């Protein structure tokens, strides 16, 4: 499996096919038994998740994993931590560098929240947000790490048609604005067929098809394993 810069690729397949496992392998949660994962030529195999994040790969989760008891702002600020340039002693003694860096990342966080439409909610506890906003917050937080590659795990899960359309717009917008490569796991075919330029279909851990949405829609193997009747 391979991605080019600025690709918007969809990863689909039945549950249990291994889609989230791929995300976990890329982000270092699991270590591959065989084979090599590379990011701009850099092998990721032995790296820990936080190191991979620093290389520029970020993700959202299938089951929302926000920092529930922290505010919206704090959730984003945690993701900014890797770009914050002060150490423990700066925090303890409250050096000028501490204040400078703190206001810099706060500014950045607020800008990001504004772009994603969450700034008015920034002081709310993450657990108090409505579901759709929580998904949005997860994306905002992932963007705060300044990624080159963004992995979205079922971002439209549980969303109504209106929210889904808004999400599709959002994904296209942020890809543009933040110069991202996006890999997307989704079951909602409106999203996959709507915005993905290329689709990979996984079944029992194997890629059974790959190509443009039009081609995938008609692929008999895909229809049998996953899509169901082509006339739907």
């Amino acid at each position, binding site marked *: 499996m391979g991605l080019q810069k600025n690709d918007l690729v969809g990863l689909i397949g039945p549950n249990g096919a291994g889609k989230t496992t791929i995300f976990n392998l890329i*982000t*270092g*949660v699991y270590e591959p038994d065989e084979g090599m994962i590379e990011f701009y030529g850099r092998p990721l195999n032995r790296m*820990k*998740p*936080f190191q991979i*994040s*620093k290389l520029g790969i*970020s*993700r959202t*989760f299938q089951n929302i*994993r*926000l*920092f*529930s*008891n*922290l505010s919206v702002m*704090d959730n984003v*600020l*945690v*993701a*900014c*931590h*890797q770009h*914050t340039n*002060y150490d*423990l002693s*700066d*925090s*303890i*003694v*409250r050096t*000028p560098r*501490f204040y400078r*860096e*703190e206001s810099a*990342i706060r500014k950045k966080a607020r800008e990001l929240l504004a772009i994603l439409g969450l700034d008015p909610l920034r002081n709310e506890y993450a657990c108090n947000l409505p579901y759709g906003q929580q998904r949005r917050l997860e994306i905002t*937080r*992932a963007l*705060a*790490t300044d990624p080159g590659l963004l992995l979205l795990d079922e971002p439209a899960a549980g969303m109504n048609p209106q929210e889904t359309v808004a999400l599709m717009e959002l994904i296209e917008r942020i890809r543009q604005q933040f110069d991202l490569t996006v890999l997307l796991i989704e079951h909602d075919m409106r999203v996959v067929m709507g915005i993905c330029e290329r689709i990979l279909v996984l079944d029992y851990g194997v890629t059974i098809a790959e190509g443009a949405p039009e081609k995938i829609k008609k692929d008999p193997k895909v229809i049998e394993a996953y899509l169901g009747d082509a006339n739907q």
Partner: protein
Amino acid sequence: MQQLKKIGALLIVLGTFVVLDLRFSASLNPYLMQMVIYAGINIMLAVSLNLINGFTGQFSIGHAGFMAIGAYSAATFTYYLGPHLLTSSFLPQVISKWLIFIIALSTGGFVAALAGVLVGIPSLRLKGDYLAIVTLGFGEIIRVVILNIDAVGGARGFADIPGYTSLFWVLALATLTVVVIRNLVYSSHGRAFLSVREDEIAAEAMGINTTYYKVIAFVIGAFFAGVAGGLFAHYLLYLHTNSFTFMKSIEIIIMVVLGGMGSITGSIVAAIILTLLPEALRPVKEYRLVIYSGLLIVMMLTRPQGIFGVREFSWKWLKDKILRRSAQAI
């Protein structure tokens, strides 16, 4: 300019403590003085444990072990190296004693911090109950090892420790502990600690080195517990491992939980209340411990998040409360 103002504030605060010490050390009822000193030591213990348990979410129940290490290390320094340093020093005795005490307390803190690294490392792979058992084990190991070292008294205890602890030291070091941990928590590093508590997997995915932060929480928590131990040793003038049992760890945990895991103000308030309460209940004689325990149970049933929950005291909150009250009155 900012730095000058800060140094100025620091000097004023220290100056106030010196004044309080000079004014009250000799004249205050020794019983009350003891309460104040113990309250200060307990504040240090509770706030340092809160960093590990409340802010970083690591289930540590062996905090008395760190206190013990600090106490015995500091006392060893003053007892064995102190006299020699005092006689060979070219500085006035008062200053020498100060310096010796500072070095002793620092030694206590650093040795405890080292133990914090050793305890922090198993914490990397263990969670919840399993981590708790490891920390409990460490606490007991430390206690039993010290019990078997004759040079620090063993089963007879460690006697004749010089009485360097004074009101000034307790006030200064309790304040230092609170300020350091508070500054740490309200920073990006603090948010990193919190993210480890909230969701480790998400934290790692967002670039937080959870391993580092878990160990650092133990190290810093242990450091201040060690310094508190050093203060304790040089107040009681006698040390025995019976002061550092699992029960002691539990007492500290109770302070943290009662005050609110994740609230520094809570730890301070709870430490003070739980230092004073047993004494305030003395009139009730044999029912003292029953009532003490009963109060804790009632507290946990009615307000399990503790007095302050996860929030801190703030002037703004107080103002809002008062203003809202008066608005209702109208």
